[in-house]
């Protein structure tokens, strides 16, 4: 392999790794918060209302995450 393609490969692997880590953290937090909020009394299976709550909670968490993300980025840009 030449220098150029090694560089490209390093960049690709680093980006993939960061994306995986990011997704893992998000999934972990969604599970934690939404399980707490939606599965109040764990029964023998997930009820359909629990599933609905969970999906909505998941979407809400991602919306909240995006809001925090854009707020943080604009704040950091203002301060630097």
């Amino acid at each position, binding site marked *: 392999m030449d220098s150029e393609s*090694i*560089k490209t*490969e390093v960049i690709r692997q*680093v980006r993939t790794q960061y994306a995986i*880590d990011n997704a893992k953290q998000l999934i972990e937090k969604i599970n934690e918060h939404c399980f707490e909020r939606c599965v109040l009394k764990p029964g023998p299976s997930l009820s359909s209302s629990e599933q609905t*709550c969970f999906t909505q909670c998941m979407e809400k*968490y991602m919306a*909240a995450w995006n809001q*925090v993300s854009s*707020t943080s980025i604009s704040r950091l840009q203002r301060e630097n």
Partner: protein
Amino acid sequence: MDNLSLDTADLEKLNEKDKTELRQFLQNENQKARIQATVHSLADVCFKKCITGMIKNGKLDKTEENCMVNCAERFFDISTLTMKHLQNIRQS
């Protein structure tokens, strides 16, 4: 995902120009990762504080949205305040 495996021998084949570019790339990615870590922890804390009612739909309502923005902004205020106060302690 087919990861082409790279080893140290491959990395030694990098020329100076590509090495410099990679260093810059890694610095940028590191900074992005630090910001992202803050966002993860803020989303965690602020979700707990702001989304307190029954979850009836997947969107943030206006109140929740404002609360998330304020929560993040106030957290940054607090971390600035901490630094200022620590400086004051050190100087007195």
